[in-house]
């Protein structure tokens, strides 16, 4: 069952050609794709093979067959580590906060931007809104730290100016504020970018729907509620499902850059934990066990979310 049949779409097949005949004919197509397939194999699939490390007492420099197999030792160690639960709590807290805020705010922004009648203002606002997406987290973290500093930081200045606080708040040194700071920074950086897709979806809604609503005397807010929101419903659902799959894999970049020793108990994520323990201390096997836990939970979340939404809404991405 080699796939020779598809070529019959435009070339009438006179006699059945063998796989190798077609292969020779399509040698350029193979030449243009197989080297990259090999590439993907090395850099995306070989690391999966590296998961075997989690079941070995891995020592670098010796061959796979000489490694000592230890079964689930490192997973037991992981689940007995108190810090693991703290790290898991941080990861889940920041990803859930990010998920909720990262969905509602870009949608609100897109809908309201769409209601702006003044085209020049609309375009300027939109162009500015993408700006932070294009700067690195290094730059963003530097800016956030500067804005939140107790020393001439605008946030403290405004709060003091409005007499909402008497003393400047030590934003970056307060563990309890860390989750909120990460979430807010993310909102600041990505709202405009994430709104693009909703703006495109809104643009796809037929103008006759709005005309009809206007004739019926619907107010602008009613139009948003009854036409715009339902119109982007399937876009929202698909994006929510995709994000839930990535819920636990929030990485460590923001936490690494925004965090410091004072907020460590609230800033460490699973990836940062595996970086600190796996690489920092050379405990490769333990670090790999953390990575594996992360991936497995991500896949379970993806399937659960997909199944759930499929039942409720008949939309699915898989």
């Amino acid at each position, binding site marked *: 069952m080699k796939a020779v049949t598809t070529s019959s779409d*435009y070339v009438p097949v006179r006699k059945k050609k063998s796989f190798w005949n077609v292969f020779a004919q*399509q040698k350029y197509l193979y030449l243009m794709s197989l080297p990259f397939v090999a590439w993907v194999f090395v*850099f995306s699939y070989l690391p999966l093979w590296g998961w075997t490390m989690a079941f070995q007492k891995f020592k670098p420099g010796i061959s796979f067959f000489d490694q000592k197999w230890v079964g689930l030792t490192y997973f037991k160690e992981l689940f007995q580590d108190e810090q693991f639960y703290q790290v898991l709590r941080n990861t889940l807290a920041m990803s859930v906060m990010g998920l909720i805020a990262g969905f509602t705010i870009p949608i609100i922004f897109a809908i309201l931007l769409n209601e702006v009648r*003044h085209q020049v203002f609309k375009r300027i606002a939109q162009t500015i809104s993408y700006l932070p997406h294009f700067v690195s987290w*290094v730059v963003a973290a530097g800016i956030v730290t500067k804005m939140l500093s107790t020393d001439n930081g605008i946030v403290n200045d405004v709060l003091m100016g409005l007499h909402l606080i008497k003393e400047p708040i030590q934003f970056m040194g307060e563990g309890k504020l860390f989750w909120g700071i990460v979430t807010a920074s993310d909102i600041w950086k990505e709202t405009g970018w994430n709104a693009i897709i909703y703006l*495109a979806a809104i643009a796809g809604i037929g103008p006759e729907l709005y005309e009809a609503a206007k004739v019926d005397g619907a107010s*602008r807010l009613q139009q948003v509620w009854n036409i715009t929101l339902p119109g982007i419903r399937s876009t929202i659902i698909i994006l929510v499902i995709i994000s839930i799959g990535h819920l636990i894999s929030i990485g460590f970049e923001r936490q690494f850059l925004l965090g410091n020793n004072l907020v460590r108990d609230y800033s460490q994520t699973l990836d940062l934990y595996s970086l600190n323990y796996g690489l920092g201390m050379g405990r490769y096997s333990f670090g790999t066990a953390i990575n594996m836990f992360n*991936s497995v939970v991500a896949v379970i979340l993806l399937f659960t979310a997909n199944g759930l939404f499929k039942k409720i809404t008949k939309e699915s991405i898989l």
Partner: protein
Amino acid sequence: MGTIKLARGTPWTDRLFDIFVYVFILFVTVITLYPFLNVLAISLNDSIDSVRGGITIYPRQFTLKNYETIFAFSGLMTGLKISILRTVIGTLLGLISASMLAFTLSRVDFQGRKFVSTFLALTMYVSGGLIPFYILIKDLHMMGTFAVYVLPGLVSAFNVFVIRSFIDGIPYALQESAKLDGANDFTIYWRVILPLTKPALATIALFIAVGQWNSWIDTYLYNGSKDHLTTLQYELMKVIQSTTTNVDSFRGKNLTEMIAQVSPESIKMAITIVVTVPILVVYPFLQKYFVKGMTLGAVKS
């Protein structure tokens, strides 16, 4: 509110809604833009004067001294060179891989199509994680090399699928007529498809270039101790992570003298601007492409 044009007889709720819309959008615009203007103003202000505070969006005592100082640091110039190099090479290689794969996957008659596209798509959902990847790079002897910046991330499934859906929109008849003229598949890719794919290529080029320019983790993990291979972002990261400007993080001469003239804060802000400016210059021009590309990519994935 005379500036907002409304039809006569608009209900007051609609007027209120309009006011809310403009206030909200203006608020978002201001909080997005202000931090950048503030950083720019501080970087252009005399550093001793900046310590007094109160700089908002324009410099109080204009000077280019902060920039002169940071450009005298050799670490910064090396970082600039490596950052530019990895952005250019990484973007070119990334475009070639993504467009070639996209072309072959768009060909319905290609018998390896199903295998290649599944093989590629799976990479969007599974990954080995940090440690196995690190060990792989180590085993391939890529630590401490420039190659580690461009080779591991060469093929991105997302980019391939964005370009592919663009190629799908090009009539197949064009390829057929080229074939009748005796062109082989590679010639078709190079002479027919690539020129027609320019808008999609521009989008992807921007994505890859921004990613390359902004990356610092690979430098941190693999090349942190190689002075001649550190990137601009990494140099900035070191400066920002140190609470007082770490003199060791710059490898220049007459350091004490230089540091005496500028405050750490001003140095941070000036480097931040140097790192950010290239992107500020590019992205507004490519806006119409990436908006299209984003929409397409997200719908397909």
